[in-house]
């Protein structure tokens, strides 16, 4: 890697424009970084330390070069090592830079929300960070939660409300959890059984049986929100059950449910098998809503900080790659096989490209049907907590901002997104609107109070 050039070479500039000093711009640095999977090896660490020491001794690069030209590299090296313990410094750096754990297990649920976590394996994003990752398909959200809490998995694909629920101790013992990166935004839909083709108005849905993936999911909160806006009480007028995504189409086919608000490829699969049609994409309710997240326990973050950092970097890099529409077809082919999603390629491709059949005979073109943006907006966390409170999952007072800050690690994400060459926001919170109603993260309680249908 050109960035780690010999600091004893008088012809090398150390104070150039990128983070490693070897490239004239950050972009050049990043492309070199991406091409070279060898970063993280010991020899490089030595170079980095030596460069850092030389930079500290000679803040002005001009001076260092003249010094080296005058005395020669060998003399300079021995002279510096007599008064500066280079060996110790190198060791110290290697320790902080070394992965505490190279073999990592990550659990996932076979849905397209997990795209960054899954694709990072076949497309080499983990390997580039020196990680040997095993992604393990898991049967449902409760199992993924238990296996992560049991430390069978080091990190996992979770629904973004889950780490909040785990941290708050709703539905499990309280364990501090973190979301270093959101995986996807949008990418969910309401699908109804074909026999309800003519009931497109939610007011006609009284008595319907719906499925959502989990109680603590964006799907549950969005469906409840949507129904409540139409005047239906989600606890009284309809039945909402929690069904693992892979079992939803089978249930819809068997007529056990009338519809679901589910992650893809479940919606598209229902169309593919001729059992359902896509009523609406959730992006029409709230464009840019978060869905699933990459989650790890606070314990993992503190005990294995380098492994954690490398993992998140791999995920953020993969997310950045997935965010580009031109890469989506290639990703669909990489994640469709039996080892990952186990779905026909065309189904996954329709989801990722947004060029899809809606089940009513129309071909829709919605390029941002699913999108990828790793930034964990803290206002997302606050919104989720307002809905937990609205539907009675969360009782008593809660310090929204504090929990959001502790679980949604926005600051870390900014750093890594910058390294991946992505645009980063300047704030950690933002306002957004859901079905036309604005949400102000500074006034969560007033927001809850403004709803007519609620359980508080």
């Amino acid at each position, binding site marked *: 890697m050109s960035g780690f050039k010999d600091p004893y070479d008088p012809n090398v500039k150390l104070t150039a424009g990128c983070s490693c000093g070897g490239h004239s711009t950050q972009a050049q640095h990043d492309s070199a970084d991406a091409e070279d999977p060898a970063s993280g090896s010991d020899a490089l660490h030595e170079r980095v330390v030596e460069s850092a020491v030389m930079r500290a001794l000679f803040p002005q690069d001009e001076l260092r070069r003249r010094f080296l030209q005058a005395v020669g590299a060998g003399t300079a090296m021995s002279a510096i090592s007599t008064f500066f313990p280079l060996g110790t410094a190198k060791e110290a750096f290697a320790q902080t830079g070394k992965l505490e754990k190279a073999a990592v297990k990550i659990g996932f649920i076979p849905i397209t929300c997990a795209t960054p976590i899954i694709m990072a394996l076949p497309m080499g994003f983990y390997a580039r960070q020196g990680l040997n990752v095993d*992604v393990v398909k898991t049967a449902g959200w409760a199992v993924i939660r238990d296996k992560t809490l049991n430390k069978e998995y080091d990190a996992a694909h979770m629904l973004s409300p889950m780490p909040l629920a785990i941290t708050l101790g709703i539905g499990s013992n309280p364990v501090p959890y973190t979301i270093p990166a959101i995986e996807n935004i949008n990418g969910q839909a309401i699908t109804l059984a074909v026999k309800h083709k003519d009931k497109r108005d939610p007011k006609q849905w009284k008595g319907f049986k719906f499925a959502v993936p989990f109680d603590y999911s964006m799907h549950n909160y969005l469906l409840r929100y949507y129904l409540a806006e139409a005047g239906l009480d989600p606890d009284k007028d309809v039945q909402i059950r929690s069904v693992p995504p*892979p*079992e939803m189409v089978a249930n819809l086919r068997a007529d056990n449910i009338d519809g679901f608000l589910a992650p893809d490829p479940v919606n598209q699969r229902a169309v*593919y098998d001729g059992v359902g049609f896509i009523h609406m994409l959730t992006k029409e309710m709230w464009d840019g809503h978060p869905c699933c997240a990459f989650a790890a326990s606070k314990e993992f973050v503190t005990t294995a900080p380098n492994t954690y950092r490398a993992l998140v970097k791999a995920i953020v890099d993969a997310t950045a790659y997935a965010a580009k529409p031109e890469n989506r077809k290639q990703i669909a082919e990489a994640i469709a*096989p039996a080892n990952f999603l186990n779905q026909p390629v*065309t189904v996954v491709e329709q989801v990722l490209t947004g060029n899809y059949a809606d089940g009513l005979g129309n*071909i829709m073109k919605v390029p941002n049907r699913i999108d990828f943006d790793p930034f964990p907006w803290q206002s997302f966390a606050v919104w989720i907590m307002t809905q937990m409170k609205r539907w009675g999952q969360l009782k008593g007072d809660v310090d929204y901002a504090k929990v959001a800050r502790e679980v949604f690690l926005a600051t870390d994400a900014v750093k890594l997104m910058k390294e991946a060459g992505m645009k980063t926001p300047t704030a950690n919170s933002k306002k957004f609107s859901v079905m036309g109603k604005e949400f102000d993260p500074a006034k969560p309680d007033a927001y809850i109070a403004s709803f007519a249908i609620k359980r508080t």
Partner: protein
Amino acid sequence: MPRSGRAAAAILSCLMFVVFVAIWHMATLPTAGVQTADDEYAKLLGSNAAKGQKSAFPSPKDVALKMWEHAKDPFFVRGTNDQGIGIQLAYSVGRVLFGFGLAVLVAIPVGFLIGMSPLFYRAFDPFIQVLKPISPLAWMPLALFTIKDSATSSIFVIFICSLWPMLINTAFGVSAVRREWLNVARTLEVSPLRKAFQVVLPAAAPTIMTGMRISVGIAWLVIVAAEMLVGGTGIGYFVWNEWNNLSISNILCAILLIGLVGMLLDQILAWLTQAVSYPE
């Protein structure tokens, strides 16, 4: 049964199979629907959805082809979540044998002790009667919560459900040894250890083996359900993974193999039972 009777039974079995496959074939003949959507739209759908129908149940031919595919390459490993059906079966059989083996180690000595003493027999009875009918899967959340490891939990579930039939049968077999034989042993002043191994054990062996045969059957039933719940590896995971893909052909292949392996396990124990039985 005389030879000719056996041949007749075999012919009848084959006939029943042929009739069954024929009915299945007739029931799954492709319906003569026409494509209702235009070509571009149809390309995005499954073949049946394009005709405005739900995807169909596979025909016997589909399943046979799928089976042949699995038989050709049963031991591939294409990653953690995609391994050959042979490997998955091996995982399941391994778990069953391990859990079952542990249960044998516990159930037979304990059953022996309980059976030897009428006092213990009565004292243990209420506990065994309550624990025996608990569905093994009801133990699963408890196991996951306390053991904190899914692989060990599935083995524990196998262990706990194979335990009771063996324990009861061993205790019953031991307590039901004929009085006269024990009296003869006492008259000859045989040492207690010798009495246990040379009089009681042979006498109780057929009953103990029957308990083991019941247990292994239950263990095989349970492992498939446990693996569907926990995931990861095993034939139960295979079924779940193919359900996820709505691939009924693959599920039917797995069902067939589960039946065959279960039959094999049962046969092995049936032979062993015969080996330890003796005519009175």
